[in-house]
């Protein structure tokens, strides 16, 4: 509690988190080594290969982590807007001078290395969101104004990322919705979100087919969904009125009617967007995930290969450097977004269980750490870190095992790449530093 301890990097540091981080980085590097393994370049420090470069990024990240632990927590609160603004500027800059990779201007290219500002921008969003919520008082995201400000904080970088366009990184910003929920946003947001996913999937599935509507002939299948929805709503209105006290009936009529109209128009919009606005490969990826028929024969190649690679693992795995699918490069660029498939093949179900367990442990541990903070700023930031990890975990692993569409985002600490490793390390160690000061200040 003395100032002496506050300045020290060896204060009440949460070594458990650091232990998990070390586990992830070491396990992650080993997996990259295996996935990118090239018998003619077996040296771990060979910079011609991804594992050599990753070794360098790990070194830099360790330095960044130590550095972060020596920076006072105050600094992050004070300079939150500066950090946010800096990354926002980079996001603007990348649209102008960025290098286009896979159709997205998301990278600053420096030789054979690239820096992806969208990965870092989440740190800025986390800090500013924490600072803003701290300023209005924790758990108070209840009025429209605070929600709009929060949405703007999240929305500005998100909008710039959409311009790149990098749908994957954009989706990870959903993490902040969970944070806002923790800080007072109505739980209906989650219900609406869940309903949106449900109706989205239903409308895409039905929209992939056609329906024969009387008098209108062959129409998109989504109309069938809308008709069924309407009939259900009418049935609900007719048969449930007797169970609802008269004073609540008006409210019920309103909810069912508005809800049905909203669901119907949402379904139609999703179907329309998928058919007419989304790019063809996005549509294909969604179709592949939902097991819908795709025109292009190999559209599901990555997904199929990833599932096969996972399936090859069995209970105990094929052993490090011994996964036939991994060693023979069936999954394109496996060391990046599909890295989990290499873990699953070479370490089996047990390895997958440990990895997923470690992520769940990290996320939940971060939530507990966040909640033990006296400072709202630290707490909100802690939730941001936990929820960002959760979103990456959710999308990345879901994609590999075929439960989410193929969206290129990294698995934290595992996927090859300097930007993501450095950004996630910073994100995490800022929280470790803030946590180490939990007794000293009340912000």
């Amino acid at each position, binding site marked *: 509690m003395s100032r002496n301890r506050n300045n020290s990097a060896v204060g009440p540091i949460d070594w458990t988190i650091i232990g998990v981080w070390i586990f992830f980085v070491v396990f992650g590097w080993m997996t990259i080594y295996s996935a990118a393994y090239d018998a003619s370049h077996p040296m771990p420090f060979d910079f011609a290969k991804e594992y050599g470069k990753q070794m360098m990024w790990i070194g830099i990240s360790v330095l960044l982590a130590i550095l972060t632990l020596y920076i006072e927590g105050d600094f992050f609160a004070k300079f939150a807007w500066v950090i946010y603004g800096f990354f926002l500027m980079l996001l603007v800059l990348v649209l102008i001078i960025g290098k286009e990779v896979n159709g997205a201007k998301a990278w600053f290219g420096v030789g054979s290395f690239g820096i992806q500002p969208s990965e870092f921008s989440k740190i800025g969003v986390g800090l500013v969101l924490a600072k803003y919520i701290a300023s209005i008082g*924790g*758990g108070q995201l209840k009025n429209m104004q605070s929600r709009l400000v929060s949405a703007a904080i999240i929305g500005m970088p998100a909008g710039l990322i959409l311009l790149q366009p990098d749908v994957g990184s954009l989706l990870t910003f959903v993490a902040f919705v*969970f944070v806002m*929920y*923790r*800080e*007072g946003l109505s*739980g209906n947001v*989650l219900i609406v979100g869940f309903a949106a996913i449900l109706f989205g999937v239903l409308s895409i599935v039905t929209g992939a087919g056609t329906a024969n509507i009387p008098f209108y002939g062959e129409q998109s299948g989504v109309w069938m969904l809308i008709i069924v929805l309407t009939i259900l709503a009418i049935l609900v209105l007719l048969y449930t009125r007797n169970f609802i006290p008269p004073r609540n009936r008006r409210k019920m009529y309103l909810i069912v009617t508005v809800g049905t109209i909203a669901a119907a128009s949402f379904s139609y919009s999703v179907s329309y967007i998928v058919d007419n606005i989304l790019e063809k490969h996005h549509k294909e990826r969604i179709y592949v995930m939902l097991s819908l028929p795709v025109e*292009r*024969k*190999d559209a599901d*190649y990555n997904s*199929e290969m990833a*599932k*096969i*690679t*996972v*399936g*090859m*693992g*069995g*209970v105990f795995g094929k052993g490090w450097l011994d996964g*036939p*699918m991994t*060693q*023979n*490069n*069936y999954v394109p660029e496996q060391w990046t977004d599909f890295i989990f498939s290499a873990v*699953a093949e070479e370490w*089996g*179900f047990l390895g*997958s*269980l440990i990895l*997923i*367990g470690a*992520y*769940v442990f990290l*996320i*939940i541990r971060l*939530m*507990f750490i966040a*909640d033990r903070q006296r400072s709202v700023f630290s707490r909100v930031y802690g939730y941001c870190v*936990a*929820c960002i990890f*959760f979103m990456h*975990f*959710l999308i990345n*692993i*879901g994609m590999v*095992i*075929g*439960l989410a569409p193929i969206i290129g985002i990294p698995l934290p600490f595992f996927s090859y790449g300097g930007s993501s490793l450095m950004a996630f390390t910073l994100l995490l160690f800022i929280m470790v530093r803030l946590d180490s000061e939990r007794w000293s200040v009340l912000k």
Partner: protein
Amino acid sequence: MEGRRYTLIVIVMTIAVIYLLRIFGLQVVSQYWKDRGTALTEKEVVVYPSRGVIYDRNLRVLVTSQTVYDLMVLPKDVLPFDTMAFCKITSLDLDELRSILKKAVTYPNVRYKPSAVIKQMKPEEYAPIAGELYRFKGFYAQARTLRVYPEKAGALLLGDVGEVTKKLMEKFPEYKKGDYIGLSGIEKSYENELRGQRGIKYVFRDNLGVERQVANGNLDVKAIEGTHVVSSIDIDLQKYGEKLMQNKRGCIVAIEPKTGEILALVSSPTFDPNLLLGRARGANFLALSRDKQKPLFNRATQAQYRPGSIFKIAQSLTALQLGAINKDTRIPCNRALIGCHGSHSMDDLEMAIVHSCNPYFRGVMQRVVEGGRNPKNRFKDAQIGLGLWREQIMKFGFGTNLSTDIPGVKKGLVPSPEYYDRAYGKESWNFSTIYSISIGEGEMLVTPIQMCNLACIVANRGYYYSPHTVKKVGLNGAPRPEFSQKNDVGIRPEYFDVVISAMEKVVGPGGTANGAKLQDIVICGKTGTVQNEPRKDHSVFVCFAPKDDPKIALAVYVENCGFGGTWAAPIASLMIEQYLNDAIKNIEREKHILEQNFLNQ
């Protein structure tokens, strides 16, 4: 609001549990993904051994192997690809490619089994494709060996190899689709030795098409190279024989009497064995099989001719052994009974052979068949006599396939009593019915190789070894055991004196084969003129030389060109010259033969 943490934790846990269940399903419950992975990553590659080389008796290479490449496609691995680029490197046109790919997935071909796109590309054709192939997933090259014939001779003798047919695969289940098998000649009869043993290599194939070993190759089965085979053929003699027989139908069989080794086996017209190689094989095979001169028909072993006068050698020996005559027996040349030629009237055996006296041998056969073994019934007597005759004749190898190592040898026909019973009815025939066989006409059928074998028997004075084309299996090996087994024909050696002496005179002054005489080598031979109504007679000659230490026995058949002494005998003499002297002195004789064309007679 702290309670909301638990909502978030529940969401995280729920997702984690759903994911773990899904992963458990993929990894532990389902076999489907594992099967697909194994099918993708592991492959059994057949390693074709190099087929054994066939050498001639002087170790000159007759048949060897050359590496060629089959471009294969595994339809299940094919991804959409740049067909134009593919067509460009393979020089296929787009329609061809389409139909090949369609065929590769049409029954009996299936998506997960490889089919050939282009077969047997030469190394120079494959080289430009090799570097580009990685761009086309599902396509790969398979090296294999193709037979080549550097000497361009001995097509039917050496035989050919081809892909196994469905029928052959049913018969020999160890062969798989795409395997090659010897179809004729030495390639067929020594298939087991030549082919070696297929190996199996287990490999990964990554998506760049690079193959890597599974388990460091510990599971692999090494291919065992085919055994080399040393043929008994003297390729110079073979080629010279083919040259002499140019523009003629017929054949030459040359055997070393002491061993039964076939020195040359010419069937004319012949063709360059290299025609039946590679991608041109199909078209060339069709053309050859439609050729009216039947180049694919091995006249030396499959043509069954009436024996003609040369059969009188066998008749003489049989009659002597059966005691029907002795060498001093004289029989009048009664041309009322059967036609004859030349001026003679009361020959003894030796002169009868020299003159090829038909009435004499009619008389000899009569004594053999009507031996008085059943004095009461002429018919039964003839039956017994013919039976004894046949038994002896078959000891010479007539009516048998001689147990050679040449596929498809015909047996010919030695009529048995039962044969005539069927033809004329039981006890309804006697010598006067069947007398024409006495001079080698009538029902009797022989093959040229049997006639050459007869010459060997005379040269050896009473025995022969089964004629064979392979001297050694393996460079330091031995012939098959059955070929070192002596076949005794059961004729007392001294009976051969008179026959050999007569055969010497045939080639001597005034003999029917005087045109075959050589200055420095004594040839013993016998001409024959096989009647072949309505077409012209076949000219036939059998011989061996030198008389005192026979090194070569020959049977020469020239179809539809006339008298035996005119064409077949000089050809035989030139062959002897070539084999024993390695040089031709009788240039005029050679020129005369080479100029003839009997193909259209």
